[in-house]
C-alpha cells in the first residue's frame, strides 16, 4: 500500500498544498518560500475581472446544455433498446453505440471536422439546398452546439449501460400483470418501466449536478480556437491559458482554487442528497 500512499501524496496532496501560491505573487525562481505574500489580492483581481464572469457563465451554460441533451437521451434509448426482441440486432446496436466512448477527443475532433468542415457533407448539403455554408468551428453562434453534439455522439450510447442494467432488474411479473390488463407496449413503458427507473434516474441526476462546473476540459481545449473564446472559454481552459500560457501562476492558481472549492461543495452536497434521499452515493 505504501507506493500508492506515496504517489498520491506527491501528485495529489503536494499540489493541494501548492495552492498557497494563490496567496502569493509566485515567482518560479524564488519558489514558495521566496515569493511575496499578497493575501487575497489575487482573488480580488479574479472577482473584479469581467472576463472571469464570462468564463464562469460559459462553463455553466455549456454544462447545462450538455445536461439537458445528454442526460435524458440515454434513458430513452435504454428503454427502446430493452424492447428489442431480436438478440443479434440488439447486440449490433449496442456494439455500435458504445464504440465512440473509447475514442479520444482528438479522434472525435478529427471526425467532426471532417463532417462539419467547409468541405464536409453537412456543408455540402447546405449549399445543395441553396443555403450558405457554415464554418461550424469558428462561428460563435453554433460552436456550443458543436460541443454538445459531439459530446452526445461520444457518450450517449455509453450512458445507456447503467439504465439497461437497471431495466433487467425490473420484475417481469409487473409486465405480465400489465399485459393481463391489456396494456399496450407504450402504456407498459409509461406505467411500469418509467416508474421503476425513477430511483436510478434521480441518483444519476444528482451525481451529475456535482460536476456542474466541469464543462468538458479536454474536449474544449482540443476543439476551441480564438474565434470562439467568447462562447467557449471555460474555467479550466482559462486557468490553463492565464496560469500557464501567460505564466500568471498565482492568478491561475486562484481561479483554479475557486473552481476546486465550488466543485467540492457541489459534489459533497449532491452526494449527501443522493445518500439521504436514495441511499446511494459514490463512496
Amino acid at each position, binding site marked *: 500500500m505504501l507506493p500508492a500512499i506515496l504517489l498520491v501524496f506527491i501528485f495529489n496532496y503536494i499540489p493541494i498544498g501548492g495552492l498557497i501560491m494563490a496567496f502569493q505573487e509566485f515567482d518560479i525562481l524564488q519558489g514558495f518560500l521566496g515569493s511575496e505574500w499578497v493575501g487575497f489580492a489575487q482573488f480580488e483581481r479574479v472577482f473584479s475581472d469581467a472576463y472571469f464572469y464570462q468564463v464562469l457563465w460559459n462553463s455553466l451554460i455549456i454544462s447545462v446544455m450538455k445536461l439537458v441533451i445528454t442526460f435524458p437521451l440515454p434513458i430513452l434509448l435504454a428503454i427502446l433498446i430493452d424492447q428489442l426482441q431480436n438478440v443479434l440486432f440488439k447486440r449490433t446496436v449496442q456494439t455500435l453505440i458504445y464504440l465512440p466512448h473509447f475514442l479520444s477527443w482528438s479522434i472525435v475532433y*478529427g471526425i467532426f471536422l471532417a463532417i462539419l468542415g467547409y468541405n464536409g457533407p453537412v456543408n455540402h448539403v447546405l449549399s445543395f439546398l441553396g443555403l450558405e455554408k457554415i464554418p461550424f468551428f469558428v462561428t460563435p453562434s453554433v460552436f456550443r452546439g458543436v460541443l454538445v453534439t459531439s459530446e452526445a455522439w461520444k457518450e450517449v*450510447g455509453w450512458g445507456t449501460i447503467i439504465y439497461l442494467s437497471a431495466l433487467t432488474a425490473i420484475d417481469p411479473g409487473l409486465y405480465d400483470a400489465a399485459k393481463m390488463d391489456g396494456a399496450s407496449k407504450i402504456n407498459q413503458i409509461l406505467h411500469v418501466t418509467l416508474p421503476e427507473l425513477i430511483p436510478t434516474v434521480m441518483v444519476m441526476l444528482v451525481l451529475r449536478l456535482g460536476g456542474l462546473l466541469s464543462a468538458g476540459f479536454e474536449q474544449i481545449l482540443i476543439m476551441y480556437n480564438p474565434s470562439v473564446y467568447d462562447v467557449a472559454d471555460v474555467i479550466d481552459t482559462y486557468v490553463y491559458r492565464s496560469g500557464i500560457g501567460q505564466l500568471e501562476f498565482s492568478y491561475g492558481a486562484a481561479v483554479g482554487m475557486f473552481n476546486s472549492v465550488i466543485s467540492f461543495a457541489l459534489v459533497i452536497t449532491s452526494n449527501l442528497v443522493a445518500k439521504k434521499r436514495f441511499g446511494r*452515493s459514490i463512496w
Partner: protein
Amino acid sequence: MNQNVQAKNRIRLSRGDRVFHGVNIGIMVVLALIMFLPFLHVVSKSFSADTYVISGQVGLLPKGFNLEAYRFSFTDTPIVTAFKNTVFVTVIGTVLGVMATAAAAYPLSLVSLKGRKIFIYYFIFTMLFNGGLVPGFILMNKLNLLNNLWSLILPHIISVYHLILMKTYFEGIPDAVRESAMIDGANHIVIFSRIILPMAKPIIATIALFSAVSFWNSYYNAMLYLSDPDLQTLQLFLVNIVKQANATDSINTEMVVPTDTVRAATVVIGTVPILIVYPFLQRYFVAGITLGSVKG
C-alpha cells in the same frame, strides 16, 4: 424458455404494439447509422483523391482511390514516433498501475487493518478536491519531469476510482477463503499473491483495460508537460495534424499533399488500435461499470 416467451409475445402482439416495434427498429437503425456513417465518411476521405475531397464530392465511398495520404502519414509525419511514445506510456503506466492498485486495494479490503477508514478517506479526498493545473505544473517543473514521458505516467498510476473498484471486489471474496489459508500458516503476502490475485482475474482485466484506455487517450497532460517534438504522444500528434495540416503543407512547398485526406488518414490510423481491442473493451468495461454501480 426464452424463445417460448418470445413466441407467445409475438402471437399476442396487438396492432399498436406492432407499430411500436416497427418504429423502434426504425429509430435503432437511424441511431446505428448516426454512429457508423461518420467513420465510413472519414475512411472514404482518407482513401480519396484530394480534388474530390475539396469539392465536397466524397460522401460514403472513396473517389479517386489512392493510398497517398497513408504513405505521407507514415513517411513524412512523426506518427511512428508518436505511436512509440504512447505505447511506452500506456504499457508502463498500465502495468505499474495494476500492480500498485492491487497492492493497495488488498489491505484496504481487510476489516482488520488499523486505521482503515482514515486510509480510505485519504484516497477518496483526492477525488473530491484537487490543486488544479497550475500547482501540478509547478510540481512537474520542480521535479524536473517536464519533457519527460514519466510525467504522463507517475501522477496517474493510482486512480482512486480503480482502487475503490478493486477494493470492493476483494471485499466480495468470502472471508473463509482467507481464514482457511491463515490456519494453514500462510501470511498475507502469500494469501494475496497465491489466492486473492488468481481469484481476482476479472477485476484485474477490467482495471488494466480501464487504465490502458485512459493512458492511450489522454491528451492534456502531454500538451501541458511535453514540448519536445520527439516526445509527442499519439493524441498530441493527432490534434496537431488536424489543427495544423495546412501550415505543415505550406512549409513543404514541394509536397502537394492533400490536407483533408491526411487528416482523415491520421484519424483512421489513430482509431484502428482501439478497434482492434474493442471486443475486449466492450466485454470488460460493461462488467466494470455494472460492478461499480451495483456496489456503489
